[in-house]
C-alpha cells in the first residue's frame, strides 16, 4: 500500500504523457494543454516566492517575456539550438531576478511587489522600443520550427517537449521545498525574527527563492514562444502577472497539485464561458478575492478538507514528515545525541563580556553603559523592573538591535553582525512572546534550529545526493535527541501552534539548542507558566547548564531566579544597579528600592510580586 502511494504520482505523470495519442484535437492539445503546462512551470516557480517565502511578485510576466524573447531572438538571429536557448532564457531571467531581488528584498515591506510591477512595465517598454531585436509592437513571427531529423515537436507533438520539461520542473521544485531550503523559506514567512535567530539569513534565503522563481519563469518563456510561433508585447502584460498570481492562489499555494489545478482552471475557464469574455478580469479579480478570504487553501485546501471530513484522508502530513523518507530514518530509532556546545573548555572563565553597552532610541537611552560578564558554565540572571532594558539587552546580544556604543566580546572575539550571523557564532535565544513557526511541525521547528548543519547548494538538494541525505539524517537524529532533551519527543509530528503554552516555551529552547550554542539567552521563559510548568522549566534550565551551555536568564519569577542562578545582574532604567550572587542581591538595598519603591525592611526579593 505504501509503495502504491509513493509511486502513484510518477505513474500518473507518465500516463499523462500519452494524452496526444488519444486526443488529436489540435486546439485542445497544442493551444490549451501546452499552454497549461508552460504556465504551470511559471506558477510552481512563483509558489517558491509567494507560497513559501511570503513575498509577492507582480512582474512574473516580465520574466516570462525575458525567456520568450531570449529564445526567439537567439534561434531566429543566431540560429542557436533550442536546448541552449532554454538555458540562456532561464539564465537571463535569473539575472533579472538578481537585479530585482538584491535591492528589493533587503527591506521588509512591499518593495518586491513595487519593484516587480515596475519591472513588468519596463520590459514592455523595452520590447516595444528595441525594434532591431524584438521588432517592437509587430512582434516576432520568424521563430524557427523545432524539427530535428525524425524528431518533430511541431503541432500536437509540442506536448512531448513541454510536458516532460514541466514534470522535470515540478520534480525540482518538489525537492527544493522538501529540503532545508524549503524549511527556511517557510520559517522566514512565519517569523522572520525567529528564523534569523535560528541562523537563517533572511536576505540570502528570500533572494534564492526569487532568483530560482525567475529562472523557472524564464525557462517557461522559452517554451512559450513555440506555442504560437509568434510573440508580441501585448501578451506579457501586467494582467498576465496578476493572472499567474490568481492561478497560484486559486489552486492553493505550497502544493504542486494546487499549481496544476489552479492553472488548468484559469486557462480553461474563459474557453468554457466565451460570452463572459468581456468580464474576464472582473471575474478573475472576484475569484482572487473570494479565494483569499473564503478559501484560503485554494481548491486543494478545500478538497483536502472534504477528504479529511469524509475520512478518506488522514490529517495533513507536514513538510517535515517526508524528510524521514528521504533520510531513511524513522522516528524513535535514532540513538541519543548529546548537546554539542561549541567548546566546553574553560569553565569559570568569562564567556560573554559587555563593556559600556548602550543603545538609544531617539531620545530614550534604553540600555546605558552596561558592563556585564557571563561566566562560562554558569546560569546568569538579568533582572530588573519592567522597562529596565532587559529585553533590549537580549536583542542587542542576539543582533536584532545594533548598539549605539560600547562593545560585546564573546569567547574573546567582538560580536557584531545580523541575527543569523550571531546565531552562528554560538549565541542562541528564545523570545518573550513565543515566536515559533506555528504552521510547521514540532520537529521541523527544531530542524530550522539545525539549519546551520546543512551545507551544499542547489544541486545536492535537487538530486538528493548521498551527502544531502546523510545531512538530513543526521539533523533528524539531532532534532529527535533535542526534543527528547526537553521532553517533547512524543509530540514531534504535532503542529507547533497546537502545543500547550508551556510546551511551546520548551520547544523554543529545543530549537535554540539546535544551533549548538555556547550561550543560551532565555527571555522570560517562565512567563505565563503554571507552577508545575515552572518546575519543569527550572529542571530544564539546570540541565542545559549541566550539558555545558551557559545561560543568560531574564525572568520576573524571583523564586526561579534565586533558585537556579549562579550570578545575578540587576538593571534599572537601563543601568546596572547591582550584581552578585543571589544572596547578595536579595540583601541589596538599591535592588529592593528599585523593585518595591521604598527602602522597606523585612522585604526580600524572594517575596517580591511577580508577573
Amino acid at each position, binding site marked *: 500500500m505504501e509503495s502504491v502511494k509513493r509511486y502513484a504520482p510518477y505513474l500518473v505523470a507518465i500516463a499523462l504523457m500519452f494524452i496526444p495519442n488519444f486526443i488529436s484535437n489540435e486546439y485542445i492539445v497544442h493551444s490549451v494543454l501546452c499552454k497549461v503546462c508552460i504556465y504551470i512551470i511559471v506558477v510552481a516557480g512563483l509558489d517558491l516566492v*509567494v507560497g513559501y517565502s*511570503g*513575498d*509577492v511578485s*507582480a512582474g512574473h510576466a516580465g520574466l516570462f517575456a525575458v525567456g520568450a524573447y531570449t529564445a526567439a531572438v537567439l534561434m531566429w538571429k543566431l540560429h542557436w539550438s533550442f536546448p541552449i536557448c532554454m538555458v540562456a532564457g532561464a539564465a537571463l531571467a535569473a539575472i533579472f531576478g538578481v*537585479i*530585482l531581488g*538584491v*535591492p*528589493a528584498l*533587503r*527591506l*521588509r*515591506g*512591499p*518593495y518586491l*511587489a*513595487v*519593484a516587480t*510591477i*515596475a*519591472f513588468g*512595465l*519596463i520590459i514592455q*517598454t*523595452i520590447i*516595444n*522600443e528595441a525594434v532591431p531585436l524584438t521588432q517592437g509592437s509587430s512582434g516576432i513571427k520568424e521563430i524557427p520550427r523545432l524539427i530535428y531529423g525524425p524528431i518533430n515537436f511541431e503541432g500536437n507533438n509540442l506536448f512531448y517537449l513541454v510536458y516532460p520539461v514541466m514534470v522535470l520542473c515540478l520534480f525540482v521544485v518538489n525537492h527544493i521545498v522538501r529540503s532545508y531550503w524549503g524549511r527556511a523559506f517557510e520559517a522566514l*514567512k512565519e517569523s522572520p*525574527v525567529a528564523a534569523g535567530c535560528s541562523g537563517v539569513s533572511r536576505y540570502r534565503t528570500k533572494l534564492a527563492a526569487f532568483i530560482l522563481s525567475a529562472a523557472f519563469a524564464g525557462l517557461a518563456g522559452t517554451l512559450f514562444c513555440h506555442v504560437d510561433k509568434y510573440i508580441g508585447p501585448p501578451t506579457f502584460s*501586467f*494582467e498576465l502577472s*496578476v493572472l499567474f*498570481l*490568481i492561478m497560484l*492562489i486559486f489552486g492553493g499555494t505550497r502544493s504542486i497539485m494546487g499549481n496544476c489545478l489552479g492553472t488548468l482552471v484559469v486557462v480553461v475557464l474563459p474557453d468554457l464561458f466565451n460570452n463572459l469574455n*468581456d*468580464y*474576464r*478580469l*472582473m471575474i*478573475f*479579480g*472576484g475569484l*482572487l*478575492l473570494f479565494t*483569499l*478570504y473564503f478559501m*484560503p487553501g485554494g481548491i486543494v485546501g478545500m478538497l483536502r478538507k472534504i477528504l479529511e471530513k469524509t475520512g478518506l484522508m488522514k490529517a495533513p502530513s507536514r513538510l517535515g514528515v517526508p524528510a524521514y523518507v528521504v533520510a531513511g530514518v524513522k522516528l524513535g530509532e535514532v540513538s541519543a545525541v548529546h548537546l554539542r556546545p561549541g567548546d566546553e573548555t574553560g569553565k569559570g572563565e568569562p564567556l560573554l563580556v559587555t563593556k559600556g553597552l548602550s543603545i538609544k*532610541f531617539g531620545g530614550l537611552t534604553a540600555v546605558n553603559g552596561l558592563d556585564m560578564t557571563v561566566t562560562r558554565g554558569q546560569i546568569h540572571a538579568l533582572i530588573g523592573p519592567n522597562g529596565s532594558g532587559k*529585553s533590549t539587552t537580549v*536583542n542587542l546580544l542576539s543582533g*536584532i*538591535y545594533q548598539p549605539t556604543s560600547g562593545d560585546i566580546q564573546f569567547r574573546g572575539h567582538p560580536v557584531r553582525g545580523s541575527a543569523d550571523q550571531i546565531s552562528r557564532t554560538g549565541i542562541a535565544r528564545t*523570545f*518573550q*512572546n513565543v*515566536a515559533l513557526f506555528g504552521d510547521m511541525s514540532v520537529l521541523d521547528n527544531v530542524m530550522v534550529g539545525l539549519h546551520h548543519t546543512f551545507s551544499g547548494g542547489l544541486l545536492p538538494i535537487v538530486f538528493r545526493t548521498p551527502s544531502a541525505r546523510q545531512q538530513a539524517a543526521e539533523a533528524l537524529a539531532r532534532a529527535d535527541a533535542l526534543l527528547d532533551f526537553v521532553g517533547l519527543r512524543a509530540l514531534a509530528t504535532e503542529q507547533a501552534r497546537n502545543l500547550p503554552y508551556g510546551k511551546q516555551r520548551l520547544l523554543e529552547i529545543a530549537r535554540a539548542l539546535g544551533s549548538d550554542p555556547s550561550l543560551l539567552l532565555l527571555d522570560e521563559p517562565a512567563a505565563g507558566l503554571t507552577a508545575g510548568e515552572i518546575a519543569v522549566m527550572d529542571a530544564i534550565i539546570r540541565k542545559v547548564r549541566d550539558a555545558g551551555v551557559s545561560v543568560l536568564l531574564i525572568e520576573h519569577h524571583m523564586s526561579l531566579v534565586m533558585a537556579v542562578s549562579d550570578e545575578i545582574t540587576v538593571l534599572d532604567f537601563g543601568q546596572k544597579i547591582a550584581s552578585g550572587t543571589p544572596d547578595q542581591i536579595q540583601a541589596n538595598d538599591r535592588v529592593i528600592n528599585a523593585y518595591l519603591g521604598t527602602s522597606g525592611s523585612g522585604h526580600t526579593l524572594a517575596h517580591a510580586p511577580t508577573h
Partner: protein
Amino acid sequence: MSAFIQLVFSGVALGMIYALIAFGYNITFSTSRTLNFSQGDFLMLGAFTALSIIGSKQSAIPIWLLGLLAAAALGAVLAVVLLEVAIRPALKTGSDVSWILATLALGIIAKNAAERIWGTDEYPMGSPFGRGYWNIGGVSIDPKEVLVVAAAAGVMIAFEVFRRKSLFGKAVTAVASDKDAASLMGINVPVVIMFSFIVSCAIAAMGGVLIGPIQIVSSTMGALLGTKAYAVSVIGGLNSGLGVIAGGLILGLSEQLTARYISTGYKDTPGFVLLILILLFRPNGLFGKATIKKV
C-alpha cells in the same frame, strides 16, 4: 533656452502629479503599513467620473470644480470599499501577501469595469483653460500645467498643515508612530486608518482630473502613473511626508530629459532605474528614516 525651460516646467508638472499620488501611498502606509496597488486605477476612475461632468472642452470654473469634487467623492467611496473588501480582512491574516493580492485584484476589477462602462477609447478632457499658452518672458507655459503644480502643492501642504496643527491630524501622526499606544490614548485607530484611506484615494482620484487635460483619459491611463508613483514614494521614502515632492520632481525631470535627449520611447525607464538605485543605495529613501522594529 526657452524650449529647455518649457521642458523643465513640464517635468515639474508631471513630477507633481507623481508626488501627489505617492503622497497618498505614504499616508496609508504610515497608518496601516499597507498601500493600495490599484491606486492608478482609482485615479483613472476619478478621471472618467470628472470627464462625464466636465466634458472634453474648456469648461467654466464651477463646472470644473464640480468635476473635481465628484472625483474626490468617488475616491472616498472607493476607499471605503478598498478598506472593507481588501485591506481589513487581510490585516487580520497578518501577512503582507493577502493585502497586496487583494488590492491587485481590485485593480483589475476596476479596470475591467471602466472598460465596460467607457470602452477602451481615449478621450480628451476639458479644464478651465483652453488650448492657449501663457507667454511669460518669451517662454510659453501651459496654464494646465501651472494648475497641476498649484493644486498638487496646495493639497499636500494643506494636509501637512492639518496633520501638524489639528488634533485629528495629530491622531494620524500618533497612529503612524505607534498604533497600540495611540489606541491606549483613546484614539480610535480604525477611524484614523479609514480617514487615511479616504484622503489617499480622494487625492488619487483628483490627480486624475488634473492630469486628464494634459495627457488623455483612457482605461489604461492609471497603470503607468500609479506605478511611477510607487517609485516616487520609494525615492522620497515610504515613511517621509513631503519627501515625495523631491522624489516626484526628480522623476518628472529625468523623464523629460530622457525623452528630449535619449528617446521618447524610453521616457518611462528612469522610474524603474531610479527605484532600483535608491533601493540599493538609500533603501529608506532620500528623506526616510530607518525604523527599528520592536520584537
